[in-house]
C-alpha cells in the first residue's frame, strides 16, 4: 500500500501496464500521429528518388548503403528522432495539464510514477513503430541489391537499435522536462537542436555531455566514401560505455520524472 511516503513497486508496475494500454491506443488514434507517419515517409520518398536516379544512371551506383548509413541517418538521428521524442516526451505531463484531463488519471487507483512510466512506454512504442517502419522501408529501397548480405543487415539492425536507444533516452529526458517545466517544449528545442548540435564542436570530453554523442558512438562504421558527415568531429566513446551511459541517462531522468510527478501539484491553467 502506498501511503504517500513510500513508492510501492507493484502499484507502479500495475499502473504502468494499464496506462500503457490506454495511451498507446489514444496515441494511435491521434491526428498528429498520422501527420508524423506522413513525415516519416519523407526519407522513404528520398530513398525512392535516389534509387530511381541510380537505376536510370543519373547517380553513381552501389552507394545505397553509404547513403543510408550517413545521409538518411542524419535525418533520422538528428532531426526526426528529436522532433518525435520532444513532442511525445513533453506530452507525457503537459498534455494532461494543458488539456485538463489530469483529474481523470489522478482520481483513479494509479500510481503517479506508474502514470509517467506507462505514458512514456506507450509513446516510446509509438515512436519506435513510426521510425522503424520508415527506416526499414528506406533500407529495403536503398540497399536492395545487398539484401542477401549479412553485413548490410547488420548495419540496418545496429542503426535500428541506435534509434530505439535514442528514442528511449531522449523521451526519458524530455519527459523529465515536461514534468518539471511549463515551457518544456521551448527548452527542449534549444536542447535538442541547439546543445546537441553545438556540442560536437567542443573538444575532448565535452562531447560526452550530450545524448547524441553516445548514440553516434554506437553507430556501425560507415562505408568509406564521400558521405561521412554524421561522424563529423566525433571522438567516440567505447560502445559498452556508450550503452551504459544511455541506459543510466534513461533510468535517471525517467526515475526523476516519476518522483517529481508524484511530488508536484498541477494546478489547472484557468
Amino acid at each position, binding site marked *: 500500500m502506498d501511503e504517500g511516503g513510500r513508492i510501492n513497486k507493484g502499484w507502479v508496475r500495475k499502473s504502468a501496464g494499464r496506462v500503457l494500454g490506454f495511451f498507446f491506443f489514444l496515441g494511435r488514434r491521434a*491526428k*498528429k500521429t498520422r*501527420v508524423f507517419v506522413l*513525415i516519416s515517409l*519523407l526519407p522513404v520518398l*528520398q530513398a525512392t*528518388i*535516389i534509387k530511381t*536516379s541510380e537505376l536510370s544512371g*543519373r*547517380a553513381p551506383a552501389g552507394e545505397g548503403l553509404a*547513403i543510408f548509413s550517413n*545521409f*538518411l541517418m*542524419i*535525418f533520422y538521428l*538528428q*532531426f*526526426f528522432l528529436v*522532433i518525435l521524442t*520532444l*513532442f511525445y516526451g*513533453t*506530452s507525457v505531463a*503537459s*498534455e494532461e495539464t*494543458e488539456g485538463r484531463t489530469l483529474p481523470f488519471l489522478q482520481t483513479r487507483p494509479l500510481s503517479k510514477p506508474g502514470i509517467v512510466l506507462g505514458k512514456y512506454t506507450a509513446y516510446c512504442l509509438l515512436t519506435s513503430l513510426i521510425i522503424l517502419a520508415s527506416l526499414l522501408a528506406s533500407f529495403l529501397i536503398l540497399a536492395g541489391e545487398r539484401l542477401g548480405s549479412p553485413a548490410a543487415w547488420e548495419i540496418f539492425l545496429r542503426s535500428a537499435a541506435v534509434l530505439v536507444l535514442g528514442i528511449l533516452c531522449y523521451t526519458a529526458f524530455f519527459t523529465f522536462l515536461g514534468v518539471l517545466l511549463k*515551457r518544456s*517544449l*521551448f527548452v527542449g*528545442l534549444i536542447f535538442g*537542436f541547439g546543445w546537441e548540435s553545438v556540442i560536437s564542436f567542443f573538444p575532448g570530453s565535452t562531447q560526452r555531455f550530450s545524448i547524441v554523442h553516445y548514440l553516434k558512438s554506437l553507430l556501425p562504421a560507415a562505408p568509406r566514401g564521400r*558521405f561521412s*558527415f554524421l561522424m563529423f568531429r566525433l571522438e567516440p566513446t567505447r560502445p559498452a560505455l556508450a550503452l551504459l551511459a544511455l541506459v543510466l541517462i534513461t533510468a535517471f531522468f525517467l526515475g526523476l520524472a516519476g518522483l517529481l510527478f508524484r511530488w508536484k501539484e498541477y494546478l489547472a491553467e484557468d
Partner: protein
Amino acid sequence: MATIREQGYSHWDGRLIERKRPWWPVTTMGIRLIFRKKNFRLLFAMSFVPAVVYLVGIYVSERVEDFKFMVRGSAQLLKIDPGFFKSYFTLDPLLFMMVMLMVFACAGLVADDLRHNALQLYFARPLRKMDYILGKAAVIAFFILLLTLIPGLVLFIFKLVFAGSFALFRSYPWLPLSVIGDSLLLTVFFVSYTLLLSALSRNRRYVMVMIFAVYLGTDIAFGIMSGIFKSPYFALLSIKANLQQTGAVLFGQRPPHAFPAVLSFGVILAFCLVAAWVLLRRVRGVEVIK
C-alpha cells in the same frame, strides 16, 4: 458651481460607429498577450543581436583605421553596400530567430482560438473572416517587420549619418526599396507559414513543433539530396534556401544557388497561395464535425 458626476458603471450613450479597421483590436490584443509571457521578452530582445552587430559594423566601417587590428581579413564586413544589407537579411541566425519567435509567440494565434471555440465569439461581432485573418497576420507582421524593415532602415540611415554624406544613397538609390521589398517578402512568407500551421491544429504545442520541424526538415532534406546529387535545384526544397535566394535577388546580388531565382519566388508564392486557401477553409464560425 462644480458638476457632480456619477461614479457608477453606465452604458455608453453615444452612437456606435463602424470601425475603419475592424481587425485592429485583434492585432493589439494579440501583441499584448504575447508580451505578457515573461520569457518571450528575453527572446525578443535577443533577436535584435544581429541588428546590433551590423550596426556596430557600420560604425566600424567609418572608423576603419581605429579598428584595423580587429578586422584583419574581415574586409567584407566593412564594405557597406547592398551586399552588406543582403547579408543581414539572409543571415542564418536572423532567419532562425524569426522562426523561434514564431514558435514561441505566434504558434497559438489560430490554434488556441480553434481549441477554445473562440471563433464563434469573434464572428458574433461585426468582424468578417478577412478581418480576423488580417488581425492575426498583423501580429506576425509586427514582429517580423521589427526585425527586418526597422533595422534595415535604421542601418541605412545610420550609415548616412556616420558617413556624413548621401554617398550610399547616390550610389544605390534603390537600396531602401530593396529593404522594404525583402522585408515585405519575409513578412508575407512568415505570416502565411505560421498561420497555415496554426490553423491546421488545435494543439499549440504540436504547432510549435511543426513550425520548427518543417523549417529545419526542409533544410535537411535539401542538404541530403544536394549532397548526393550535387544539384542546386534541390534548394527549392528548403525554406531557408528559397528566402536567401530571393533576398539576394532583391538586393541585386548574385544568388547563392545556381538556378533561376524566379523559381524560388514561384515556390514562395505557391506556398502563400496554398496557405491562404487552407486558412480561408479552416477559419469559420461553425465547426463541421464528421
